[in-house]
């Protein structure tokens, strides 16, 4: 079995949190929307606090930062793609290009990074740090978030 097959099979069998009354936002036109990235790659800026194992907190990433380190603790995925091109995980330059073309309204001033290797119950990101990060982006005027996994 290949590494990716192993991990997809393993991940598919993890406990799946249920959302009985899921929220649904009717978005405004994309060309008028402020867009942010939320990644689970545990990216953090050089000199900022690194992620610990099972870290449930998050980091803000300022819009102009590109000196980002992959802080994810799992050895189970390719780590070279992001070294070659940050955008393969964190497509910040692509968003800037879309804003210049008028496809999206604006790139958010700051973005969010979590660590994908969370405790199985995901209680903290569901009840505490996730809502706090979402409230911060909402306060920043973010309308749309694209979530990129690692």
């Amino acid at each position, binding site marked *: 079995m290949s590494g990716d097959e192993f991990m*997809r099979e393993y991940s598919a069998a993890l406990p799946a949190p249920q959302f009985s009354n899921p929220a649904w936002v009717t978005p405004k036109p994309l060309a008028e929307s402020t867009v942010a990235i939320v990644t689970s790659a545990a990216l953090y800026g050089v000199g900022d606090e690194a992620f610990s194992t099972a870290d449930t907190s998050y980091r803000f990433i300022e819009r102009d930062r590109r000196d980002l380190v992959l802080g994810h603790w799992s050895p189970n995925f390719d780590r070279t793609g992001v070294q070659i091109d940050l955008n393969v995980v964190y497509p910040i330059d692509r968003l800037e290009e879309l804003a210049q073309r008028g496809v999206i309204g604006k790139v958010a001033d700051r973005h969010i990074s979590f660590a994908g290797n969370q405790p199985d119950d995901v209680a903290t990101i569901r009840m505490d740090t996730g809502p706090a990060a979402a409230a911060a982006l909402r306060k920043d005027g973010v309308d749309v978030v694209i979530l990129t996994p690692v």
Partner: protein
Amino acid sequence: MCVLAHVFEAAGIATIVLSSVREMTEKVAPPRALYCEFPLGRPLGRPSDPAFQHDVLARAFALLDAPQGPVLVDYPEVITADEQPVACALPPRFDPSLPPAVDEARGLRKAYDRALGRRGMTAVGRAVNADGIPEALGMLHAIANGADWTTAGIPGGNTTALCHDIRTYYEEAALELVDGPPPGGRAIEDWFFTKTEAGATVLAARTAIREAGAKFPIWFYMTPGHL
């Protein structure tokens, strides 16, 4: 990611997940998801390919037009990780008095330094920095040959951090040594574990630590799980 999508949507932000595990996405059912069967660790598919990345984003943003959810759409192209060793030169044996992996790591230092100079940053440093990589491999060599892993000097006893630093040192060096298009997913990982003395040393030390009765997380996360 799917959990966070629900959380952010509840805060009034429209969300789109680039999904990498379809079954989990089906179960958690975030409002909008584009399933991208790409190499894990590369959710936009192809590094240094802006056109491809823009196509992924365009298909993701198109999900905002759905009148209701959950919406789960497959990206039309599958990219499979290479998982074959990239062609990458290794330094010749220089000091036969050293364990092969220690000698090899020393020989890769210039390539690592070029990578550091070009990128201005490194992901090495959780347990040891680049100066400590040969010594770290010396520890693992000793463990693989019978030394007690609990007294071998692993910083904080954190085998995961130590092996991360060793592998990352090699990966960053290798990217300076490989010609041609960007290596595919896990191609350098496969090179590390099948072609290098360091990879063989990590695997042998992992086996020794497991057979010594260490708890599962101590040895398991020293390498990818399928090895």
